């Protein structure tokens, strides 16, 4: 799950999940929700694959959310569903969604960037939790 929390001029995402893979997938969905305001309007009609290299969960999270952001900025792709698998080299991600169509989709926020401010991934008895603040 993800939730949006207050940050004076920007927006923060706090994500909680039982596994790291689910944590990354929900963080990517959270970004889509910030951009569109409503993930339900995105249909999973096409598929893209991302490979994120690395081992540090913090930078894997940052780079994955950054790639999802870049997909919208550069190719106007919106995603609603992510399948994430992880091995020793990094993440393999299958993202499903569709190209932005102004007749179909509304947009809520222009996300300037994914910031490193308070960027965090941690694990406790309840599972995994991550924080990402996006610049609006």
């Amino acid at each position, binding site marked *: 799950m993800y939730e949006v929390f207050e940050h004076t*001029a920007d927006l923060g995402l706090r994500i909680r999940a039982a596994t790291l893979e689910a944590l990354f997938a929900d963080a990517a969905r959270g970004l889509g929700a910030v951009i569109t305001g409503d993930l339900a309007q995105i249909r999973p009609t096409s598929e893209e694959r991302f490979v994120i290299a690395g081992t540090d969960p913090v930078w894997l999270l940052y780079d994955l959310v950054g790639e999802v952001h870049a997909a919208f900025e550069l190719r106007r792709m919106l995603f609603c569903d992510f399948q994430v698998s992880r091995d020793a080299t990094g993440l393999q991600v299958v993202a499903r969604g569709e190209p932005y169509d102004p007749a179909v989709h509304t947009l809520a926020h*222009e996300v300037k960037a994914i910031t490193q401010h308070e960027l965090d991934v941690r694990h406790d008895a309840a599972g995994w939790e991550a924080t990402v603040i996006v610049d609006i």
Partner: protein
Amino acid sequence: MTKPPVTTDQSSDRASSRATDRSFTGPLEPVDDCTWRIPKSYKPGMLVDGLIFADERLIPLLRSDRAPEQVANVAFLPGIQQASLAMPDIHWGYGFCIGGVCATDPASGGVVSPGGVGYDINCGVRLVRTNLTLADVKPVLTQLVNQMIRDIPVGVGQGGNFVFSPDELRTLMREGVPFLARQGLASADDIACTEAEGCIPGACPEYVSDRALARGADQCGTVGAGNHFIEVQVVDRVENDTVAAAFGLHAGQICVLIHSGSRGLGYQVCDDALRALRDAPAKYGFDLPDRQLVCAPVESPEGKHYLGGMRAAANYAFCNRQLLMWHVRQVFARIFGRSWEALDMQLLYDVAHNMAKIEEHAVGEARKDVCVHRKGATRAFPAGHHDIPERYRHIGQPVIIPGDMGRASWVLVGGPRSLGRSFGTTCHGAGRCLSRTAATKAAKGRNIRDELLKESGVVARCRSREGLAEEQPAAYKDVDVVVDVVHRAGLSLKVARLRPLGVIKG
């Protein structure tokens, strides 16, 4: 499991309680009636004090978020000079606070930090004068604002009318507004009245990534979203007749304020720099309290690379606001049936508020070239400074302070104490006092567009439902209070107050 879309009422109680925990309880020692000190003893590692320009009215707001903590964190930056400064429009940012100012000395290992400029490199404002009065505009105001939102690209995902090839973009980034003048899209006066004459020297477009070029290809001449806007205003009150006359302002006059920056290109330049500098703190042995403060010595290869790309993005931003002004002039010409020259739509000034510049300043007994980071802060040089356009040099640099869309904006002039107190810097706006989620919650069940029209007579047009709610007047501090502080501190002095009439937003 996922929660439904993003609105405040769907945020958990846990998130809300965390938000309220985010107040500053550290020391704020009064220095005078508009300056507060965070002593460097507050945190081990601070190299200088923090100094915040504010008065008693602003202290509760100042303590309500973690921005003062960020002022203290910036004091860790190697080579920082005098103090880590913040303006009265301070609020919580990422790494640096918004409203933060920091000067570092390159000659003694001083650093440049992309977080000290922000993602929106050379976000800034320009003010355009006209020879129209309120009586001219009032009958056609709705038509004018409707035409503006039809003709001027604004909002998320809106490409612009000008599309540049990668080679053209590189030339534009190297040469700035003079490149547009050669295309017939800028006048000599436009260049003269833009900070740095619309071209920061030392721009290195070759350091700008393909991804940044792709994001910027069709965005030069677009407003964007968030807090960016174009606003039709009327001069409500003149506070200083002599300076106002020198700036070509008088009561009742119509002006247009344009607020935007370097769009996706600049955001990407910052993002690329933060990635490239990921390992720099370890390489240079810096111990920083926040990842977003990542930095490198100004004179290092990494520092030079960032500054070269940042200057290129800054020049792109000057061109963006120039093209937006070009659109505004065309809209006015269409609505009023006269050319923009006949409407005397001259640029008063264009000034950046997110930038790092090498400037010469007095530091103690010495004069030094320092790297001045202004993040949500405006250069405000006093009369006589050689970097002020010749036509204003005897009077001081114009400073343009956007407020909120319901109350006011201001024109100030660089103050006599700005060089000595703040490396020639003043505030950049009203500063937020409500988060975006809190503003959205406060707007629930209300029609902000109708309220603006009924209560302030402001015609507002916004592309997204979130835009007006998040940017409503109540989300901002009272700009009159903020301006009053910088006026009393001598950083910049009041010239004229402008009232909004119509606004377009993303």
